[in-house]
Structures are given as C-alpha cells and as structure tokens.
C-alpha cells in the first residue's frame, strides 16, 4: 500500500501465476485445489450434453429406483431417470443463480460501501444501521421471505440471495476504506487537490480490490448453499431442468425406501462445488491478508 497501483498490477495481486502459487505453501495449494474443483464442475456442466450417457430428463416408467448398476452407474430416481446424467447436467441452475447473485451483490454492495464510508457522518451511520439490521437477520429466512414474494425462477432466486449478502460486502469494504482513508498517501492526494472520485477510484479501490475478491469467492459458497436451501423449501426453479437441489428434495421422499443413491450423489456434488469456492476463499484470504499469516 505504498503507492497508488494501476489497474494492471491490481489484477496481478489477486491472480498470481500457478507456478508462484505452488511456492506459497498451504494457501497456494488450497487455491489450486479449489480452482480445480470449481473448474471441474463448471466444465462438466458445460459439456453435459456431450458427456451424459443418457438424456437426464428421459422418464423410464419400467425402471424406477434402480440401484447403481452397469447400465445406470449411479442408479435411477423414482421416475427411472438416470442419476449419472442428472448429476452431470444438474449444476447449471446452481451456477447460474450463484454467479448472478454475486454479480448483483458486487454491483450494489461495493459502491454502497465505498460511498458510505467515504461520505461518513449521518449518511454512513444510517447505512450502517440498515446494513447491520439486514446482516443480523437469519439470512436464509430473509431469502425465503423475498423468494416467496417474488416467485420462483433463476433471477428471483438470485435476487433474494443477493439481498441477504449485500451487507457482507458493505461491511468488509467499509472497514477497509476506513483504514485506507487514514493512510498518508491518501492524505497527500487530498492535499494535492485530487477530486473525491479520483481518490476513490485510483487510490482506494485498488487497495480494497483484494478484499472484494475474497468476499466474493467465499460468498459463492454461501450463495450455492442458500440456493440449495431455497430449492429444498420448494422455492427453487420449478421447470423441468435437472438440478442437484431438486434431486435432493425429491430424494427426501424416497429415503424410507432405502434408495440412498438419489440423495447421496447430488449432495456430494453440491459439497464439492461449495468446497471449491470455500477452499479458494481460504487460500486467497490467507495470501492477501498478510496480517493473518503466522
């Protein structure tokens, strides 16, 4: 934080090369592992039409709840749909919802945090109080309320999740800006007559950027879990698209029949995806927050 950084070096602080990552110890490996998991899931979902052995939505009336076998490696669900194909293509809604909600959070939370902390005074206090109230609220319950009113669908789910997590972005950015604002180089820029938006965009934002990346990465995992929760409650996407959340919910009814495969595999996929983002977030926050390094 010695001097204002340009956009290019801003990116390079958070996107180090893979070779340099392996030299950063555990944190680097966490990022690599997380990235592999996330990329794997994204690739699998993107390539699903070509790699699924069956059509994930084809109903086979004669083959309900088949346990894993050669023709159906992960079994079938109650309508005889092939679980393996459903697993392969089931990530698309989760990914869409989480990406959309993180984008909405970034669009709302970041400018709000920058503005509020830089403005200070009554504006800052008011924003803080509102954000703290939202933050204190049980996130999933709030998301449920909004989703219940907005209705189902990818965009509505993403919006209801985004509202819940905006305060997390706001708080992190605000506390960062408050500490950076006091730095002598910002004071110097101020004294030299730089305009407010110049200071914000050229001097403060580049230094807040790493924290934004960390929050967004961790938030991906939360968004995925919240989306799964909403689907479980029945507020997910209702149209017939293979979805891990839907399969999990469906499997709940089938538990008593002992068909473990219907819930186990979609659940593991959600864990892997969320785990990928969590690991990346862990690694990044360790790398970008030297204070925490032991």
């Amino acid at each position: 934080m010695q001097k204002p950084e340009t956009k290019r070096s801003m990116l390079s602080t958070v996107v180090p090369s893979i070779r340099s990552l392996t030299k950063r110890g555990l944190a680097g490996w966490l990022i690599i592992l997380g990235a592999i998991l996330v990329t794997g899931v994204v690739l699998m979902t993107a390539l699903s039409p070509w790699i699924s052995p069956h059509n994930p939505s084809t109903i086979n009336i004669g083959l309900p709840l088949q346990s894993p076998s050669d023709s159906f490696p992960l079994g079938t669900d109650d309508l005889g749909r092939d679980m393996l194909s459903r697993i392969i293509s089931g990530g698309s809604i989760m990914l869409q919802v989480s990406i959309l909600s993180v984008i909405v959070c970034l669009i709302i939370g970041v400018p709000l945090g920058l503005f509020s902390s830089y403005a200070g005074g009554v504006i800052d206090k008011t924003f803080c109080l509102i954000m703290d109230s939202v933050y204190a609220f049980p996130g999933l319950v709030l998301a449920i309320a909004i989703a219940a009113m907005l209705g189902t669908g990818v965009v509505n789910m993403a919006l209801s999740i985004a509202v819940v997590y905006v305060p997390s972005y706001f708080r992190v950015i605000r506390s960062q800006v408050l500490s950076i604002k006091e730095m002598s180089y910002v004071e110097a820029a101020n004294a030299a007559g730089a305009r407010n938006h110049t200071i914000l965009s050229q001097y403060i934002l580049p230094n807040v950027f790493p924290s934004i990346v960390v929050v967004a990465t961790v938030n991906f995992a939360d968004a995925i879990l919240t989306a799964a929760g909403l689907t479980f409650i029945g507020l997910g996407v209702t149209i017939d698209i293979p979805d891990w959340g839907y399969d999990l919910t469906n499997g709940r009814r089938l538990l008593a029949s002992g068909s473990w495969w219907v819930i186990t595999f979609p659940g593991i996929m959600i864990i892997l995806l969320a785990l990928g983002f969590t690991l990346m977030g862990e690694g990044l926050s360790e790398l970008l927050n030297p204070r925490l390094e032991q």
Partner: protein
Amino acid sequence: MTLRSYVISRILLTIPMVFILLTMVFAIIRVLPGDPVLLHFEKVENPQAIEEMRRRLGLDKPIWAQYFDYVVGLFRGDLGKSMQDYSPVAEQIFSAFPATFELAIFAMIIAVLIGIISGVEASKAYNKPQDHVIRVFGIVTYAIPVFFLGMILQMIFAVQLHWLPVGGRTYPTMEPAGLVIPLSPPPWGFATHFLLSSIPGLVIFAICFGVTRVRHRRFTRKIVLVSLAALLFVWILWAFAGWHYISIGELRIATGMYTADSILEANLVKFVQASRYMLLPSLTLGLVLSGVFLRLTRSNMFETLRLDFVTAARARGLRESTVTYGYALRNAFLPILTMMGLQFATLLGGAVLTETTFSWPGLGRYLVDRINFRDYTAIQGAIVVFGIFVAIVSLVVDLLYAYLDPRIRL
C-alpha cells in the same frame, strides 16, 4: 462507561434495529411487487372472495394505515390473522416456538462442544496429521448443505440401523395437549422423586459456579453460600411443588420444550424419549455450526498455548487436560460467547431446513408449511418472530459479554 450506561445504550440501540427489521419485513410482504391476496388465490378468478379477504385482513386500507395497524398490532402481541382460516397467527406461532427454541439450544450446545474439543485438539497437534484432519472437517462443515447432512444421518441411524426415530418430536401418545401436561404418577415413590429433583438445582448451582469462576476467578465464602442457598431453594421447590402437581394429575405450567418439561416433571422415561427425538436434528445443526467454533478455538488456543502462564502451569506439574481446558481455554471463552451470539442467526436459518428435514414441528416448519399454503400473513408473522428472536438473543449475549468482560465497561 459504566455497566449501567452501557446496558441502557445497548438496549436503546436495539429499538431502531428492530424497527428497521419490522419495516423491512413489511416492505417485502406488502410493498414488493406481488399482491399477497392475489398471490394467495393464484388462478381463482373470484373478485368477491378476494375483496372479502382484503376486507377481513385489513388489506383494503391505504398502505400507511396497514403499516400503522401492523406496528400497533405487534406491540399488542397481535401478528394478524391467517389467510387460511382467519385464526390468529400469534397463537400458532406461540405453540410452535418452544420446539424451535429447544432445538436451537441443543444445537448450540453441541456445536460449541464439538467445536471447542476439536479446536483444542487441533491446536495441540498444530500442523500434525490430526490437525489437518480436524481442519478438513471444519472446512467441510462450511460447504455441506445442512439438510443433506440431516438426510444422511436419517438414512444411517433411522432408516438403516433403526436406532433413532426418523423425525417428529415425540410419540403421538406422548404429545401434550396445549400447555397442559397430563401427569401420571412415576413408577417410583417420593424418595426417588426427591433425589431426581436435585438435578435442576445442581444445574443452576453449576452455572453460578461457572460464572463466578470466569468473572471473579476465586470463590469467596459469600458466593459459595449464595450458590448453595439457590441450590437448596430450587431443590425443595422442585421436589414438593413437582410432587404436588403429580398428585393433582396435571401440570398447567409447561415450557413446551419437551426435554425441559420432562425434567420439570422429573419423568425420566419421557426425558429419554424426548432426547431420542432430539438427538438427530440437534446433531445435524450442531455439526454444521461447529466449524466456526472449531476455527475460533483453534486460532485462539494456538496463541494462548504458547504464553508464559501456560508454560508455568505445566512447569508446576498440572495435568495436560487441566492446563488446556482449565487454564488456556478460559482465554477463548469471551470470543466464543460473542461468536455464539453472531452465529445464532445462522443457526435459525439452518433450523428452518433441519425442521423440514426431520418434520420437527417448530417455527421453521410452520414457515415452510405456510409458504406451501401461500398464507402470506402467517409468513410475515413467522419472519417477524424470527427477527425479534435474533435481536433479543444478540442483546442478551452482548449484555452478558459486558457483564463478564470488565474491559467493555472502561
């Protein structure tokens, strides 16, 4: 700042927060696009029925009047009428609430216990294989959907092994009617009842002692005497009042929390039953939440275990468990308390999913049921109660923190 002025300012700060929260819920349900009454009727085209419902629920008034009704109603404990049958929402929530409260308490205890124990073990074995295994466990708890864990546990322990019930709160026959609990005389006599009645007193005694240890770090004769008096008072009251109620045949004061009620009745059979139903849901929720406490304890203990006073305690020849749990862990107590307050909201969110998984008849399942019925007034009521509950808990935790940590009063 004295303790009193801190308490007053903290309570005053809660008021605008609760107010914002109430307004937010109102805005979501009534102002966001989507008229609750039209949503409730979905596709039924019957303008008369719609008008009728609007009128009976007071939704035909202008929005500011609705807001006024809503806030005033809340102060009178009125959460509006259900869209389903116009019955008061507050009553339904009142009877569902104890189940959630009970689940939350047990889950929190389990989360903190698992978190502390595994965190301490991890910090003792810093960077050794045990530490890595525990850390991986901690990270996985961040990534696992709570209802998935619940279903896995259900599948293993209930469906496959038949050790524990799949869901619900108790045997249908043991379900108490309202808040009146029928009491049958226990198979043992007064002497055993008298002995069992000492348990609640002992619990209170232990809490008194624990608080004293943390706050004053040494016992004066006065503290010991006061704790003993409290123990005796609770014991005698419990034994004789409890026996009195058993002889009458019913207990009119019940908490609605089955484990607590069974202790109140000193009914061991019922306690075991209630705990059996309690175990899987609270374990599910507790496991998912334990990662946070694990991480907190681990990082706290890692630093504390290298401080001089711990070395000194070891040098004096104290047992390792005494050193870690008795000496070093005490430093982590206040951060853990704070974290308990912060995590309470997460816990309630998880409780909604856990209750749905285990058919646990609490507030969370009430909320989900009402969503399925498109009963928006009830949804609003349930969410308001969730929010106020969290606000009260965080207030209590903050006040407790101020009481236990003298620094905050400086």
